[in-house]
């Protein structure tokens, strides 16, 4: 899968959400987004679901990774 990495760790609200949702609006099958954030971006999750996305959150100690892909993709 093609991965687009978005490093949002040093961005102030709401820039992480803007960056990710703009990328989500352009996402195609076979592509995924790896979002890096300093905290769990809980406000984002409902918006991802509303746009037909699936996601997975991985806590990495110093940061959080959110993997986002189209629900139709495996």
């Amino acid at each position, binding site marked *: 899968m093609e991965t687009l990495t978005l490093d949002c760790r*040093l*961005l*102030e*609200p*709401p820039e992480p*959400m*803007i960056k990710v*949702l*703009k990328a*989500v*609006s*352009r996402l195609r099958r076979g592509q995924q987004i790896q979002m890096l954030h*300093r*905290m*769990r*971006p*809980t*406000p984002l*999750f*409902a*918006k991802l679901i*509303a746009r037909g996305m699936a996601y997975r959150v991985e*806590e990495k100690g110093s940061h*959080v990774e959110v993997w986002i892909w189209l629900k139709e993709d495996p």
Partner: protein
Amino acid sequence: MYQGLSLDQAPPQDIPFRFFLTAPLFWILLGLLLAWQGGDLFESYINLSTVAFTHLFTLGWLAMIMIGAFYQMIPVMVGGEVPFLELSRWVHTFILFGLVGLIVFLFFPYSQLLPWPMAALGLGFLLFLSQMGKTLFWMRGGRPTLSAMRASIVCLALVVLLGLAMLGEYASWWQLPWEREQTRALHILFGLGGWVGLLLIGVSFHILPMFYVTPGLQGPRAERILLHIYITLFLLPISILFNLPWGWKLAASSFGLFGLGNYVVTMWGLLGQRRRKKPDPTVWLWQWGLFYIALFTLTAGGLWVPQFDSAFGFIVLLLFLGGAMVNITCGMLFKIVPFLVWFHRFSGLIGRVDIPMLGDLLSDEVQFRFAKALNGLILLIFASLLLRGTFFLPVLGVAWAGLGFILWEILFSVYRYPLKLAA
């Protein structure tokens, strides 16, 4: 790692905005009262117009902002669900009419007028405390922000009870078992140190790292700050109620003042460590607020020293209320209000149409201009009081009212910002 904001559970924006848009109206009334009464407001604590002035600020401005913020923050910051959210409308109505009734009573002190504002204020706060108390005390966890919010609510309950008790005593309905000065001291302590101070401190532990990308602050350092304040909130009421010598009261206060000083140093350091050091008007307002808290911390012990007169006491309390709290609440509003409007009205359209950014809703330039005007005015008011030039106060009062009108316009324009779609 802390969770940031949980905006899935955010209340509709109308709920906090009902309170946020009412508060500046009392700011305007404050200015008009200052213009009318001038230096007379700072002659005596028991002057009824002074009491009115104080409560226009503490109930009209501070409580409105803080209650609106509570409705917003409880679900999103600590993940709790506020029961019967629609009751917020009644909380607002009761407190609004109760405060207006209280002010009318203070200028026309007929005891027949008193039951209505007392009942309204009592009911309004009872509803609010029931909602928040159930949410906060049913939640699990004890991180500093949650601990501070719980303690703040308990202090609010005590403030309201003491306030209603004092009103009834003033109307000669009952006699409290201690002197009115003692009741007033407890009322001020739990109000400023407990309700206002703890809420501010607890919330700032969360939102400063969140909004300004600073290191987190929910560990032992935050707990130590709160512990010192809790010690004072326990010891000082005892020394007040038992009428201990002033040295004991000063000693009891010293813990909380030390905690407050630690808080100023900690938060100033945090702001200095923010990742993006671009000029930010809300940071500037926070820094002014912390500066005034520092001055308050250095002088507040003098409130117990008999050699210092009431003029000194007014200055000290104004440092906290008029200096620190005004700056910090404005800084928080300028950060939270655009974010709330943006999130509720525009965030769902990202990637579909061009949406306004936070800077479009409320520009840094407008915020800086307001912040400079505000702090210039605060300094002039302090200068008038310190240099005994109180004949300037009426003019400054008009300016204060004008600034309140500008603030209301700013907040309302953000609230009503239109979505301009491309043709």
